């Protein structure tokens, strides 16, 4: 049996879990086994959702002290269900929470864990392909342990809803939790205040790097983003220099964005930046150096000083609009 942990936030399923179920359904098929799901402290609607994406049995875990997310308590619940059901594979989505819960689970059970896998091959050995370096390298590895513990890299599998979802078989599960399992619990949750369009939702991202030269230099990027209803992004050099807040950073240790158009101004295209913007539909580069690595990887480029090119672009937009 394969056991998939369903991630939800106060009852709302994380889309990465639907990808996980689709992946799990296919893996179960190839291993000739069944797919079960675990929902911790969630509503019955989640079980229906899990069944619609391929879970044959859904374990509904409930405990009076478990209302909100609590990493160790979730992991303890999972290990207790593992003890009872003896799955061959246990998996979660490779999200912050998914990786956190499985890391605790692995540590509690003294088992290895392969995070952010994109593929599993089951033959004589259990082999996985996982992403490293934030997505710029792949690793083929052998994974040991009983059960095998892994997380699935988000966006590596497309979620497929079954055309005729069956009624899920529900099983309730009551974990035994100690005070220790509940020592790390969310105290409160506060909205993050953001102005304008967010980086990850914007149709256009105008990003600046070292070539922008200063915090003030970003005014012209702000102006273009404003005209296009977009957001301003930055390379790590720009955030490290304090020109932009870290929330604007695109890349391996910043946000991953996929807008209609990504405009990279004064950015060279280091691999750690590239992994954050490469999924954009179109990429336009403005760089003084025609040899900058990002130029060859982009769809469009203007060779020139961003402080000359961007004002001219803004002026041209205004001229055509007649404003």
């Amino acid at each position: 049996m394969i056991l998939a942990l369903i991630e939800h936030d106060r009852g709302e399923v994380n889309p990465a879990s639907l990808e996980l179920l689709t992946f799990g359904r296919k893996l179960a098929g190839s291993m000739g086994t069944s797919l079960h799901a675990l929902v911790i402290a969630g509503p019955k609607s989640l079980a229906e959702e899990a069944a619609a994406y391929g879970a044959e049995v859904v374990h509904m875990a409930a405990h009076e002290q478990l209302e909100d997310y609590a990493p160790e308590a979730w992991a303890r619940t999972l290990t207790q269900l593992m003890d009872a059901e003896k799955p061959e594979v246990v998996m979660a989505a490779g999200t912050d929470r998914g990786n956190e819960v499985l890391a605790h689970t692995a540590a509690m059970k003294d088992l290895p864990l392969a995070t952010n896998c994109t593929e599993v091959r089951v033959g004589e050995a259990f082999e996985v392909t996982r992403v490293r370096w934030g997505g710029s390298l792949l690793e083929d590895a052998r994974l040991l342990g009983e059960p095998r513990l892994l997380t699935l890299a988000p966006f590596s599998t497309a979620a497929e809803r079954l055309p005729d979802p069956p009624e899920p078989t529900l099983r309730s599960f009551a974990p035994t939790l100690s005070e220790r399992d509940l020592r790390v619990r969310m105290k409160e949750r506060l909205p993050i205040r953001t102005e304008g369009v967010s980086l990850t939702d914007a149709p256009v991202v105008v990003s600046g790097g070292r070539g922008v030269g200063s915090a003030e230099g970003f005014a012209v990027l702000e102006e273009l983003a404003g005209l296009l209803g977009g957001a301003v992004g930055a390379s790590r050099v720009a955030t490290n220099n304090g020109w932009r807040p870290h929330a604007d950073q695109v890349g391996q240790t910043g946000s991953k964005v996929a807008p209609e158009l990504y405009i990279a101004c004064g950015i060279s295209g280091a691999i750690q930046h590239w992994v954050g913007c490469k999924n954009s539909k179109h990429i336009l580069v403005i760089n003084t150096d025609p040899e900058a690595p990002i130029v060859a990887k982009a769809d469009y480029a203007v060779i020139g000083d961003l402080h000359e090119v961007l004002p001219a672009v803004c002026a041209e937009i205004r001229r055509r609009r007649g404003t």
Partner: protein
Amino acid sequence: MNILVCVKRVPETGARIVLTEDGQRIDTRYLGFTVSPHEECAVEEAVRQIEKHGGQSTVLTLGPPEAVEQLRAAMSIGIDSAILLETDGEEWPPMPTAEAIVEAIRQQAEAGNTFDLLLFGNESADAGGYQVGVRVAQALDLPCVTGIKALEIRDGVAVVRREAGGFWEVFEVPLPAVLTIKEGINVPRYPSLPGRLRAKKKPVLEIKVGTRAGGLQKIRLRTPEEEASQVQILGEGPEAAPKVVDLLEELGLIPS
């Protein structure tokens, strides 16, 4: 306050990653080395907390002898001392890495050096296992919060925040505790020249640990296939502006 920060030496890759022929590692002949930005921020956070609350800080790495370079870099911005768990250069999987770190922490405790706070990166830059910090916390039976972007210590309690889908999640954990840090918690300072000179004189405890395998066994590394792109040069300098705006119109990106 006594703080330990764990960092991992990784190559500083450029625009393209080149692998060795056997696919076992990154070809580092022409590369410098660094640590993950999350870990740089963890180092900076340790220095700031000690500046605020007093006490001392230690940086630890498990890696080849050359990793002393990353330890000195941390000491040059204010970390007091270092521990090098010296390997023969092979990369260790997360399980034995955590075990070796736990052993070193226990040895320190026996020698009278107990840590109130253990800081890790949320994930290492190269392996991205998302687990060494959590494993250390479980082995030492300490509370652990991952992905921290704000930390305040009040009366022996760490009040921490992390981001989750448009919200700040706030947690409170009593010390001692393990926290894994994300970039953005602070902006790390640059080392000063006197800082670098002082770092050369700070103590580094070297402990040989050899090699150890774990249950995640690397077979090979590969570079993912990149879709070939044909760049279209729209022009040079400000004269290219009309072409750029044509493109924006074509893509339907100019709001009317």
